């Protein structure tokens, strides 16, 4: 067979080459995606703002009453002030940090939880462990999202991270299902068989051989989760189930509902724009990432 020449050099080391080539081509693809790069740059700017908030470089007076009620936009108050005289610009900046905190915590934990459970159940597909994980996913998915989140938020009463817990416990199933499917594909591959033949333990196989090969899925899921978490925060905070401590765009938007009638939209506009900017940029970034990491996608 003539096609043999292309296969030269390929050996048992399938995962290594596959991985490097996947990440290398992904990086190359991503580097050429203008929208993705712009998105990433904007996200990085937001992250810088968040870091500044965490280190106390700016937005330190977000909780203070620094002006009159509903002061207009001015050099001192870039977005004006709110109903009790707090600076909306500072609150908007401060909320950026909250958004990253919520987005990152939720995205990372969702990916960890979904990745571990999905990989375990995929690797042991057909066993009782798999059955239990699948059952859990089914149960979680069968309860409408807002009901579930509200219930968890209430059940955890005044636990400050109730919202995070609620989001994580509902979001992980999507990642779990993806990873499970991929792992079922992977576990039939030769390198896993080889590792098994060498007597490597199951946990080690999952952690060292299988999970790393699902990294591209995890990364994409993480970006999607990040965006979902930020958007869900807005709605949950509006419903009074959201951020307990500090300030967030969701709180600002719900705060703004107190001001519509009086014709003041500064809070709404500030929070909406800031949030839209981050979410839009992140969506562009996530899209580019997906394109880059999906071997099937051709630009």
């Amino acid at each position: 067979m003539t096609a043999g020449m292309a296969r030269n050099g390929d050996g048992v080391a399938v995962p290594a080459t596959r991985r490097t080539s996947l990440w290398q081509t992904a990086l190359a693809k991503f580097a050429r995606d203008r929208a993705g790069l712009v998105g990433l740059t904007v996200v990085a700017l937001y992250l810088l703002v968040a870091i500044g908030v965490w280190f106390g470089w700016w937005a330190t007076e977000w909780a203070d009453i620094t002006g009159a009620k509903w002061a207009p936009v001015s050099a001192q108050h870039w977005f004006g002030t709110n109903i009790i005289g707090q600076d909306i610009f500072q609150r908007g900046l401060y909320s950026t940090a909250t958004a990253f905190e919520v987005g990152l915590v939720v995205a990372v934990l969702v990916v960890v939880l979904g990745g571990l459970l999905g990989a375990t159940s995929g690797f042991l597909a057909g066993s009782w462990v798999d059955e239990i994980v699948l059952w859990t996913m089914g149960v979680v998915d069968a309860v409408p999202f807002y009901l579930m989140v509200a219930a968890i938020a209430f059940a955890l009463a005044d636990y400050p991270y109730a919202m995070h817990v609620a989001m994580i416990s509902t979001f992980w199933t999507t990642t779990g299902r993806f990873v499970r499917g991929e792992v079922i594909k992977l576990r039939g591959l030769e390198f896993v068989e080889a590792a098994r033949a060498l007597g490597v333990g199951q946990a080690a196989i999952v952690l060292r051989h299988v999970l790393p090969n699902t990294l591209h899925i995890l990364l994409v899921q993480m970006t999607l989760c990040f965006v979902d978490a930020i958007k869900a925060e807005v709605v949950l905070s509006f419903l009074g189930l959201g951020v307990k401590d500090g300030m967030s765009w969701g709180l600002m938007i719900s705060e703004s509902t107190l001001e519509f009638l009086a014709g003041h939209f500064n809070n709404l506009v500030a929070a909406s724009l800031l949030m839209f900017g981050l979410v839009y940029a992140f969506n562009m970034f996530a899209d580019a990432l997906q394109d880059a990491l999906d071997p099937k996608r051709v630009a």
Partner: protein
Amino acid sequence: MQPWHRRLFFLRSIGGVSLACAVALAGGCGSGVAEGPGRPTLPGPKTFHHSFEQAPASLDPVQATNIYANHVVVNAYDTLFAYKYLARPYQLKPNLAEDWPEISPDLLTYRIRLKRGVRFQDDPCFPGGRGRELVAEDFVYSLKRQFDPQNRPQGGWFWQGRIVGIDAWKSAGSDYAQDIPGLRALDSHTLEIRLTRPYPQLLDTFAQGYSAVVPHEAVACYGRELGTHPVGSGPFKVVAYDTARVVFERHPGYRQEPVDLAAEGYDPVKQRYTGVERIAGRSPPFVDRLIIDFANDDASRWNSFTKGDEVQLSALPPERAEAVLASLNPVRLQPEYAEKYQAYSGPEAGFVFEVFNFDFPDFGYHPDPARERRNKALRCAIIKAFDWEARNASWYFGLATVFPGVIVPVVPEFDPALSRASVTRDVDGARRLLRDNGWTAANLPVLVYGQSAGVKQRMFYEQFRAELKQIGWPPEKVVLKQFATFGDLSRAWKESRLPIVAKGWGLDYPDAENTLQLFYGPNGSPGSNDANWHNVEFDRLYEQAAVMLPSPERTALYRRMNQLVIDDCVGMTGLARNRIYLWHRNVVAMPDREIVGGFWLKYVDVLPPGQSARPEGLGATG
């Protein structure tokens, strides 16, 4: 039940007061639909479309716990007494009762005669579907329902320990076949009520939805669903009810009682602009259909109101005050609004206040007297830091009244001359107090501020935290704790789990006793004394005043008690909102839901669109 009722009085028996029951036959009942002189022929039913900011949970009178439920209940049902439509200050008048009761000299026995010919609304629960006549036994039955736990009643505390034998009846298992000695129907139209001790506010309690008269047939027929399917003898019959709105239709069999404006307390100088003179001599209700929307969001309610063809009467959202009002006192609209709307402004019958919980050794009572003194300084400093005027400006747009103490402006005992020091912000004074008593940023306690969920509540907290920061209280030591439901917050109060309790209180009747009982020692948690404040002198004065009829002596006692609350820095108090109602010009109404409750709704009339109820020559505003 209040422990405070029980402690004071011994059961006293009274001799029966023989009464000649001269029974006046009520005028022809039944079919009449009031055809007032100016009643226009409208296509379709004449409709009044009203709006509330909240939906009542249940329409069962035993659960008529808030003004929203009360509004619906008193229009679907009847009460023995009611508040006069137009009289200010508020005055009672007989409603189902034919006249004022006969009261024994020791103030312990009341004999009340009911009007004849009052009929329940037609409903399938009655034999033949036709509403039968309301009799005295119905009232006895209805009040018993407040003492039957199966109904989950919420108004029993008005009569618990006060009506002879009512508690025993409940502990014996709430058997409706058993009689209550202090609550009897002497004949079909005469009631006798015997009290364990004088209860000056008794007749007020009979003007509450809680005491509205329910026919036992309806309870038998609908059971728990009575809460969504009222069957009463009131001016309107509920035809549809859900969480978004309630729709009433006129009760065609409602008794004919032509309006006597003078008897309703009409003040031509202040009230003529409403056009209520148009209803004189006619029998309510005047509209065929009454719709009340429940919309807890001001914006959509206001939008609906200003659209023109939806809600016709709405409270003015404070946010719109600047745009709509030309002046507050007297209330006057900007010209473009005055062309379209009428307005009325009045103080709420209630107030908002925040008290410290003395159960918490960090703020209240402490085994160490020195620490207790320092705690008082702490409380007084917080009170000085608290900015009522900022609260008023931010949230009530300056439309509220800030007043010292706990006697609210709407009651006759209010003292306008009281010193305002306790509601005046004094940052320097607060800092000095803290410094002089050894309080520093390091040793100040953590203040947990409990609130129900909601962005407004959250902003209250932010405002409070920022104000405390200005007297040197570290912001991280002011912690918000929001409760998902009002029930959970209420539970925290009743279990004495919050160091500071911020709440509002709506008056049940126009008497300062109703707010002073909030500080009566035996009313501590789970009672209404959320501060768990125990002051010997206060308690003694309270017990003394509770059995007194209104008098200057009683007012003096009330005011002394008020001063005690202020002097011990029990809390930040208080603020009474002013409600401003706006309504379309073709609506004839004097809307005031304070105290009057829902009784005003049956007097509302609606003119054809484009017409104005406002009498000629009054000018556009005023």
